[in-house]
């Protein structure tokens, strides 16, 4: 018997699978997560993978959460330990009272276990070797067999798992029966030899609703399809490559002309990120909706072009799936650490519009909207995703589209406009919003042509090296940035149940952990108002939120408090009012961490200061 009492919880626990990269475990693990979902119980899975193709350790973590807390929780209740390389670390990560499922084919000395956990040995390799002779089959079916064991240990609905296997191998039907057989090999072994179910277990619920289960990169790519992107240029880089791949897959299904079988899209895998953004800028200049997907190192390489697009006023969309930096940093781990490099990308005085989606649904919405914003504002728009959203399946609101929506192509003059009374000056601020009119190349035989350049020009796009037109233009670009404040997604505010003088600002993938942290804080008697920033430049409401409170926590996933820096700088705020809460070890931020940090700070405020010694 373990020294700690075994954890006993229904529909609320964390299972972690420790595997070897390239062993075919990913689809079995995902099968497990989906099977839980099919039982009406929300899950939040996370891939923790190495920068490697085969051999290094990889983990898949599934948080089972009927309460719907989709952020990472921290800690593990059930470890499926399939990787001897990481045994010690995996064992150590188990909560007291947790459960360890391992392959007991070879004897493991008792010193290799902990006495405060429940150890469950299943001779997985022996079962496989008995059943299969082909080494590849032995490896692949071993994964399905441990899922079978879990169905018994956790009291799962087996018909749901079987149905999922049927869906997974649709079209490769001869694989269905062997997989179901393997599932039952594991399940039967567990039912016969082990105490089933465990203290942690599943129970059918109705907490999933109509939500969908999708990766952020796939959702963002779908947003690009719906938003009218026709040109995609990209260079492979984790964690953004699957976004470009998904765009290709979506287009192959949704963008092929049914009559001619020709493509209504063009995808170029460029030679580097410089070429990717160059292609996007060229296409945007010529009136097509174009985007690239990249990560931090790509943003570094694109700096010069981003400055050109800002200054020459060319629409472009960049989806930055952020990872751990600087340099190669932690290429397969998550961070929100490109905020400053994206906001001020390039030399000289530049500022860029940023969007901060919280989950795949917003990744879809904001990416689609980014193309309207890029055309309207004639400038690069950066969608700031991160690995946590981009490369993990997330349970989220279904995607919606309003069929009456017309793309906003911005201020584009046609041949008829040019022939009419309207005066054309490429950099003329006709409407007072800082946004000039443009023409596409080839519009009119004698009117509306202009020369686009990164050098100074006057309001009629004529080259100049004079100071006054330069300043005039730079001021107009600032006015345009003001206009952007009203066009980007507005911040979302949620006040605490009782009045409070404290607030918290957060953004992006921090959202689910933040929601849970606030619930934890409220349960402990702390009240904190919340504001989720969704776009840069910041709306006036963001500055007001800070100035209306004694102080505001700024929660983010980087070392240098980059969003806070941007808030102080752009809203002219007193830094003392902004308390950084920073998590940047590459793992997704957790509610435990946020609630701990905010709770500690609020506790500290309650400490009665020492009385001054009166001399």
């Amino acid at each position: 018997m373990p020294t700690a009492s075994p954890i006993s919880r229904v529909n609320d626990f964390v299972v972690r699978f420790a595997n070897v990269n390239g062993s075919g475990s990913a689809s079995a693990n995902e099968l497990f997560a989906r099977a839980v979902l099919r039982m009406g119980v929300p899950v939040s899975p996370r891939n923790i993978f190495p920068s490697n193709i085969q051999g290094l350790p990889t983990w898949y973590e599934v948080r089972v959460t009927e309460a719907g807390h989709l952020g990472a929780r921290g800690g593990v209740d059930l470890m499926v330990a399939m990787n001897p390389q990481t045994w010690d670390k995996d064992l150590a990560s188990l909560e007291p009272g947790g459960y360890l499922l391992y392959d007991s084919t070879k004897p493991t000395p008792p010193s290799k276990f902990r006495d405060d956990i429940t150890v469950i040995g299943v001779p997985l390799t022996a079962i496989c070797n008995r059943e299969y002779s082909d080494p590849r089959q032995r490896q692949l079916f071993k994964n399905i067999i441990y899922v079978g064991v879990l169905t018994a240990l956790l009291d799962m609905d087996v018909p749901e798992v079987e149905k999922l296997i049927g869906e997974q191998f649709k079209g490769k039907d001869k694989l269905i029966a062997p997989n179901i057989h393997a599932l039952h090999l594991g399940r039967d072994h567990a039912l016969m030899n082990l105490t089933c179910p465990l203290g942690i277990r599943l129970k059918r619920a109705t907490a999933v609703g109509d939500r969908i289960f999708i990766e952020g990169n796939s959702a963002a790519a779908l947003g690009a399809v719906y938003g009218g992107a026709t040109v995609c240029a990209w260079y492979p880089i984790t964690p953004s490559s699957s976004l470009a791949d998904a765009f290709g897959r979506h287009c192959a299904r949704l963008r092929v002309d049914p009559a001619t079988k020709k493509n209504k899209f063009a995808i170029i895998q460029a030679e580097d990120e410089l070429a990717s953004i160059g292609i996007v800028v060229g296409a945007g200049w010529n009136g097509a909706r174009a985007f690239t997907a990249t990560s931090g190192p790509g943003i570094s390489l694109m700096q010069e072009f981003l400055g050109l697009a800002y200054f020459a006023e060319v629409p472009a969309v960049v989806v930055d799936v952020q990872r751990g930096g600087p340099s190669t940093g932690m290429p397969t781990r998550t961070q929100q650490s490109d905020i400053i490099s994206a906001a001020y990308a390039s030399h000289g005085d530049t500022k860029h519009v940023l969007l901060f989606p919280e989950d795949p649904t917003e990744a879809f919405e904001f990416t689609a909207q980014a193309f309207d914003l890029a055309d309207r504002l004639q400038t690069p728009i950066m969608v700031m995703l991160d690995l946590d959203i981009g490369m993990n399946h997330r349970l989220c609101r279904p995607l919606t589209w309003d069929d009456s929506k017309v793309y906003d192509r911005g201020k584009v003059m046609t041949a008829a406009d040019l022939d009419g009374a309207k005066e054309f000056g490429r950099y003329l601020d006709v409407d007072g919003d800082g946004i000039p009119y443009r023409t596409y190349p080839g519009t009119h035989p004698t009117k509306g042509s202009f020369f686009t350049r990164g050098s100074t020009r006057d309001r009629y796009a004529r080259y100049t090296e004079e100071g006054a037109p330069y300043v005039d233009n730079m001021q107009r670009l600032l006015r345009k940035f003001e206009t952007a404040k009203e066009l980007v997604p507005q911040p979302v505010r949620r006040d605490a149940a009782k009045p409070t003088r404290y607030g918290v600002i957060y953004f992006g993938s921090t959202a689910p952990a933040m929601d849970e942290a606030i619930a934890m804080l409220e349960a402990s008697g702390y009240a904190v108002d919340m504001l989720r920033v969704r776009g840069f430049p910041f709306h006036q409401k963001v500055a007001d939120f800070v100035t209306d409170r004694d102080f505001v926590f700024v929660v983010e996933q980087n070392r240098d408090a980059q969003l806070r820096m941007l808030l102080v700088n752009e809203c002219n705020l007193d830094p003392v009012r902004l308390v950084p809460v920073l998590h940047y070890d590459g793992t997704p931020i957790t509610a435990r961490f946020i609630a701990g940090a905010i709770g500690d700070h609020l506790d500290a405020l309650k400490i009665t200061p020492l009385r001054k010694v009166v001399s």
Partner: protein
Amino acid sequence: MTYLTKPKFHHPDLPKNALGYTHRDYEGSVSTLCAGCGHDSISGAIIQACFELDIEPHKVAKLSGIGCSSKTPTYFLGHSHGFNSVHGRMPSVLTGANLANRDLIYLGVSGDGDSASIGLGQFAHCLRRGVNMVYIVENNGVYGLTKGQFSATADRGSKSKRGVVNTDSSIDLVMMALQLGATFVARSFSGDKRQLVPLIKAAIEHKGAAFIDVISPCVAFNNHTGSTKSFDHVREHNMAVNRLDFITGRAPIHVDYAPGALEVVEQHDGSKVALRKIAPHYDPYDRLRAMNYLQESAAAGEVVTGLLYVERESEDLHEHLDTVATPLNALGEKDLCPGSAMLDKINASLR
């Protein structure tokens, strides 16, 4: 000259082309390059080629990088949209522009610094992809705007104006273009308009990546004794492989009466390029032999000019990508947005 505004009026009897445009309609603003710069002759050749081909000026998009050569698009085709982009990155911008609208003519103008040094990667990859364009390098072997540093096309052993000898091997962009799969490769000399104009015309009519390396001496920094890109040096060492005469489906516009064999080169779109062979038995359809010939001539110290290679059944990037005939920038919501019913289906598949 550069402080003078170019007068708009012109002689009423100026010859007009089939579209009713005169030569002047293809001009740009006054050049700000040095008097006598070879680049201005190339601008002149581009103007003449477009005039003779009856191209509507606004149907050309002219793109460039940074440098003296990249400034020139301001000096021709004033009714065309132009894009003076980033140093060495014209090819990617042109590629994107081409993807957005396949119906325009894309003219990329670059220099040896822009294409052979900072932009060598983009030069290579846009040729590999077969972007439908005319890519002209105005090659003077020197950085003019920054006062005369060697570029990567400067020959080893050549001398800078300050007397420094170049010890680095030179890059031959023509050789590279052949190796990279460009489907039209030519070299010419800015001072030889009779050769250059037909080459530009043929390149415009060619479908796919057409590359022309134009030796264009820098009068300020690379026209001295010891330079291998000076007027005198090039004139002395130039060896033309063929004389080119461009024939459209309508009628020959320019006839070259130079003696020698004439070979009519038929391109994929039906337009014809006639080659006046100087070198006997030169076959412009043989990539391998073109490369050998180039190497042999270089070893003999000769600059080969003319149309070195052309592919008969050339393809372009749009064919590789199998894109629709309508320019992508002309597609609207109806063509591009799959709508809410499809999204409901997608949602259903994600549960």
